Every structure is written in structure tokens, then in C-alpha cells.
């Protein structure tokens, strides 16, 4: 028996085979949830994942509000009322502060921050209308606790998500909706492919060596298990909270 038997979940930004979203989908499904797999791209990977977990793939760009409203409506019509929403879609660029372009700013803010608002508010409205409470979990980042050079916009959007999450937690508590966020550390996801650290084997080794627990990157499923904690009855009394899953990276930063 799973901890999420009978629950319906939506995970955004979930298709890519090396992404955090896929780890979240697999863990929610392993606990018995029916999962809607969303992504703006990677349709084949998304459909394959949906088949694997007995869920369904929904293509939609979270930065577009009309598409998000339609996404939530379709998931509820086809899978049932939403119990769990993991707002996970994210993009990143690496640019020195003085070289950040408006195009990059708009792209990252559109997906990471406006996308989180779109998904969070559409999910909350559906859950309030359903009258059965709900669980919303955002993917933020270790960036909410430490600044990373060349990633000003990415880090700023994650801090914005942190503030959004906390405000939602207060306002949605009366409806039985909890709102929390997870803080992944190093994940060798597609998002990180352009990272300068990954272009240089020595730098990557040095970076991984800074991770106190095992000197290894995270498995996306380890992020999924943190989402399951918030989404299951274990998280009944937890809202506005942040769960960092980084192998001790942040606390080890100055060690």
C-alpha cells in the first residue's frame, strides 16, 4: 500500500530523462499517486515516462497563463481532482551580472517565477473549489541560501519562489492546503548541462568533492522523496517550510 494511494498529482517540467521532475514523478507514482507529467518540450520522453508510471503526459508551457489554466482543467477532467501539485519547471543561464541580457532575464523569470505563480495560483484555485485541501510543493534551490556568481537571475527567481511559497502557505492554510518548497543541490540534470563547471572535468570533480555526503551529485529520486514527505500525511502539519536536499552542500560550503 502506498502513502499516496488514490491521489492525483501534477508535476511540471517533468519529462526530461535526467531532470528532477522525473524523479518526483517516479516517487509520487511509487507511492500510489496517478501522475500528470507536464513539460513544455521533450514530448517523447514525457510520454514514455507517463506510460512507465501509468500516468498521462500534458504538453504546456507554464509561463503562459492560459495554457496553465487549461492544463489544470484537463488534468482534473481526465485524472480527477488535483490533490498534489509539484511546480518544478525551471531554466537557467550562466552570465556575468553586467552581461545578463533582457532576453535571458525574461526567459528565466517567465518559467521559474511567473510559471510558479501561474501553476501555484491555478492549482490553489482548483483545490479551493474542490474543498478537499491539497498539497503544493515548489522546487526552489540552494540558491535561496547562498549567492552563486553568474546566476543572478536564476537565484533571484528561486528567492522569489521562496517568498511566494511562504505567502501562499499563510493564505491557503484556512483551506487545508499546505505549500512548501524543496532545495535541491547538485543534480546532473539537463538544466545544468551548460554550467561552466560541467565543461571541465577537474572543476566538476572539485565541485563534487565539496559535497559532504559522499562527494556525489543527487539522484533526482532523492528530490522526489522530499516531495512525498510534504505530499503524504507525514506532512499534514508542515507548511511554509523549506527542505534542502543537497548532501550537506550549503552547510559544508565554508568547511
Amino acid at each position, binding site marked *: 500500500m502506498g502513502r499516496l494511494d488514490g491521489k492525483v498529482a501534477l508535476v511540471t517540467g517533468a519529462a526530461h530523462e535526467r531532470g528532477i521532475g522525473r524523479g518526483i514523478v517516479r516517487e509520487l507514482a511509487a507511492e500510489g499517486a496517478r501522475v500528470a507529467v507536464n513539460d513544455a518540450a521533450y514530448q517523447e520522453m514525457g510520454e514514455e515516462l507517463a506510460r512507465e508510471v501509468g500516468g498521462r503526459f500534458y504538453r504546456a508551457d507554464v509561463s503562459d*497563463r492560459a495554457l496553465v489554466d487549461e492544463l489544470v482543467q484537463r488534468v482534473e477532467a481526465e485524472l480527477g481532482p488535483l490533490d498534489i501539485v509539484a511546480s518544478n519547471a525551471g531554466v537557467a543561464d550562466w552570465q*556575468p*551580472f*553586467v552581461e*545578463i541580457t*533582457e532576453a535571458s*532575464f*525574461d526567459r528565466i*523569470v517567465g518559467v521559474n*517565477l*511567473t510559471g510558479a*505563480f501561474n501553476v501555484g*495560483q491555478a492549482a*490553489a*484555485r482548483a483545490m*479551493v473549489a474542490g474543498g478537499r485541501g491539497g498539497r503544493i510543493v515548489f522546487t526552489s534551490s540552494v*540558491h*535561496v541560501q547562498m*549567492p*552563486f*556568481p*553568474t*546566476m*543572478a*537571475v536564476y*537565484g*533571484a*527567481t*528561486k*528567492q*522569489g519562489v*521562496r*517568498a*511566494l511559497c*511562504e*505567502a*501562499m*502557505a*499563510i*493564505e*491557503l492554510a484556512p483551506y487545508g492546503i499546505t505549500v512548501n518548497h524543496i532545495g535541491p543541490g547538485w543534480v546532473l540534470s539537463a538544466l545544468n548541462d551548460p554550467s561552466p563547471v560541467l565543461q571541465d572535468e577537474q572543476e566538476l570533480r572539485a565541485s563534487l568533492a565539496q559535497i559532504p555526503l559522499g562527494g556525489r551529485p543527487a539522484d533526482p529520486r532523492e528530490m522526489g522523496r522530499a516531495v512525498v514527505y510534504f505530499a503524504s500525511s507525514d506532512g499534514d502539519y508542515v507548511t*511554509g517550510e523549506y527542505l534542502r536536499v543537497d548532501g550537506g552542500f550549503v552547510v559544508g560550503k565554508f568547511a
Partner: protein
Amino acid sequence: METFVAGPVQAERGPFLELSQKVWEEMVAEVRKAFVGARDYAREQEGPGRIVFVSAAAAVRPIAGATLEGVAGAFLTTAAQVAAVELAERGITANVVVPALEPDEQTVSTVVEFLLSDSAQGVSGAVVAADGGFSITKEGKPSPLL
């Protein structure tokens, strides 16, 4: 010394569930203006410099009905801290001032002026409350010390 100051961030207040796409986009536009302004300043500034963002009380502690200014202030806080790290070698500091929910202009400007001054050359990436104690109280009074 030329300096750059943006804020305090202002945004529509109201229940989260009722926030419109329009007010969200207005908030994003304001944040974008402050961010791009600081970037342009850092591009052009020669020698030491100062960037100050005046944030919002809700960026530090969530306040029902003040979601948008909280998100905007939070965004600019991390933006300032990353800029602080990157610009340190040029002697450019970047700091954040946090006013009360209803900002007291005098209190805020005193702290901003300090951060812009020569005396503050060793202060960067700091988040400084200029709020009469608002952030340390739980009643949410505008400014308990004022």
C-alpha cells in the same frame, strides 16, 4: 561617486487567490526595471560604486495580502547578493534595505545614505532592516520603535 538606488518595491496588495495576471506582470516589470538599472549602472561605473535596493517587509517575513511586494523584494535581495559577490573586486557594493510594511521615509533614507557613503565600503550583500523593529515583532504594527 555615482550610485544606484531602486525601490522601495511597490505592488498591488490583495488576497493571493484574487491576484490578476495584470498585477503580477506589473510587479515583474518593476523588478525588471530595477535589475536592468543596476546592471547598466555596474556596466558603466568606473571605480568604486554603490548599489542599494529598497526591498519590502514581506520579502523577509510573509504577510497575508502582500504577496507581490514580498516576491519582488525577495527577488532583488538575491540579485543584490549575487551582484555583491561579482562586483566586489571592483569596489562596488550591493546591499538591501528592508522597510516596514508601511515604510517610514526618514528611517529608510538614513540607512540608504549610510550604505551609499564611504563609511560603508566594507558592507556588501547585507540585508538591513530600517523598519523601527517591524521585522522582529509579531503583531505586525507598522513601526513599534517609532
